[in-house]
């Protein structure tokens, strides 16, 4: 191709076109999702600053505010872990970490997705390439998982630095649990976002009536069972509560509540897998109509 000085691209070769297609299709069939992830990360550069601020700035603000203020005020142990009494900061830290992963999905699995279908229409461009719709959604999710892992790892380093983790060794699994919580919340949201053809402010509603209540009613700032039973169901349905409870178990060395860790984990997995299946279906339906 480089031999053409005119700048006109090379014409087709004489090779058998069917054979050429079969060869050229093999690599994208395997790695299509990776190319989508590459593109997604490149797009994230446009708001890299927001990502860093959310990853480091926001935890710092919470930890300083809660650590220096609220935790100093609540100067008694709030729970009993296997390793002894638990301070308020140690109680809140796993919840903050998990909510950071869930918060990421409020952007990546909402407006970004709607834009990919509707405003910037990126997905339609990908769709015309060898990449399959399932790979498009796979690549997007993979890219976001990496972002959630990096963010929660940074969060973890910070909470350890603030002395907010009872056992930093088992607690080191918290980023994985937080990310799973992010997926349990985010993948159903992704499926919903992919189904939206008209922007009627649905995501602002999700923010107001799903995300914010979850944050407040998921045993984030006080144990869930302090609330009346008729409000506790919000926590039971909340990926944030389940991820937080697992995170607390990892930090304290024993489950903080009556529910075994395995149950929390199973609920998160079911939510994530259901969301994943639905999201794949929506992408295929939308892009292959």
């Amino acid at each position, binding site marked *: 191709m480089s031999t053409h000085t005119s700048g006109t691209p090379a014409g*087709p070769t004489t090779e058998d076109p069917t054979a050429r297609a079969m060869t050229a299709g093999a690599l994208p069939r395997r790695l299509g999702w990776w190319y989508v992830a590459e593109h997604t990360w*490149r797009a994230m550069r446009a708001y890299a600053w927001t990502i860093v601020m959310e990853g480091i700035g926001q935890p710092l603000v919470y930890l300083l505010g809660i650590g220096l203020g609220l935790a100093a005020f609540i100067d008694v142990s709030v729970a009993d872990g296997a390793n002894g009494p638990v301070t308020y900061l140690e109680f809140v830290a796993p919840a903050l970490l998990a909510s950071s992963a869930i918060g990421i999905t409020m952007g990546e699995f909402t407006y970004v997705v709607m834009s990919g279908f509707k405003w910037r*229409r990126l997905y339609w*461009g990908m769709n*015309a390439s*060898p990449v399959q719709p399932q790979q498009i959604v796979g690549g997007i999710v993979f890219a976001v998982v990496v972002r959630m892992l990096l963010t929660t790892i940074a969060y973890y380093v910070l909470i350890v630095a603030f002395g907010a983790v009872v056992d930093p060794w088992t607690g080191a699994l918290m980023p994985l649990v937080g990310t799973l919580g992010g997926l349990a919340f985010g993948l159903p949201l992704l499926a919903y976002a992919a189904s939206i053809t008209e922007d009627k402010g649905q995501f602002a509603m999700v923010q107001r009536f799903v995300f914010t209540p979850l944050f407040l009613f998921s045993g984030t700032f006080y144990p869930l069972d302090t609330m009346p039973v008729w409000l506790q169901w919000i926590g039971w349905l909340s990926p944030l509560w389940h991820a937080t409870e697992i995170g607390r178990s990892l930090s304290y060395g024993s489950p903080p509540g009556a529910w075994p860790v395995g149950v929390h984990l199973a609920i998160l997995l079911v939510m994530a897998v259901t969301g994943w299946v639905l999201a794949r279906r929506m992408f295929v339906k939308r892009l292959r109509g």
Partner: protein
Amino acid sequence: MTPVIAARGLTKTFGDLTAVDGIDFEVPAGESFGLLGPNGAGKSTTMRMIGAVSSRSAGDLRVLGLDPDAHGPEIRSQLGVVPQEDNLDPELKVRENLIVYGRYFGIPRATCASRADELLTFAQLEDKARNKVDDLSGGMKRRLTIARALINEPRILMLDEPTTGLDPQARHVLWDRLFRLKERGTTLVLTTHYMDEAEQLCDRLVVVDHGRIMAEGSPSALIRQYASREVAELRFGSDRNAEAAARLEGMAERIEVLPDRVLLYTDDGEALLERVTDLGLHPTTSLVRRSSLEDVFLRLTGRSLIE
């Protein structure tokens, strides 16, 4: 040689609506093939089926000898697609758009980069390589989309209304680029509702309306078959056109009465105009021109191509 695209009874339905209604056509390698038709004719739907992104409801389709239902990725690896609506990534720079897109075909990054530079030259966008896509004019965006579609050195370039919405000068620049590709032997499949575009670019075309093929042939053959050599366009004022047309009965091979003018199909327009004047009819304006695909379309469907 087997055709690169072969459709038989190709059909697409959306619920009750039949968007593509059993069409047959073949495109041999190296041909420039056009789908000409008005809004809603089913052009884009047909393109999407060929592009292996929309499955057919009935009929048979082979692209490069492969069934799109089973071999979508393989087929798409050999296509360049210029969609009706641009979907460049506005957040990325012009050159980045090409590189990112090349990756979707599994092309190594270094190859993408060198091809991107060549394609920017081809699309006359070298100066814009580091600009954001949003800074480009409509015509430049269209050229970038074409450059992007060429990043995988496609066998078949599919263009859905490549020049709709562009000014005449931008259209000519684009046609020139497409000509070069055609000369190189790239198979072009394009849709348009501009007959001049079809005449310029297509070796052969089908006229589609309501999802059906109304006629097929080269632009000149279609004109020969469905229209006379020349057309006299007469305007008598909108309320008098019909009345005048009645008096002109039998003077031309065929007469079409449109709301704003009367079209008289004949081999010698000037001679006809003289006979009209001899009759004592005085059109407010008159014009003799060569027949075009517009006339073919009018003849076939009784409607204008562009409303």
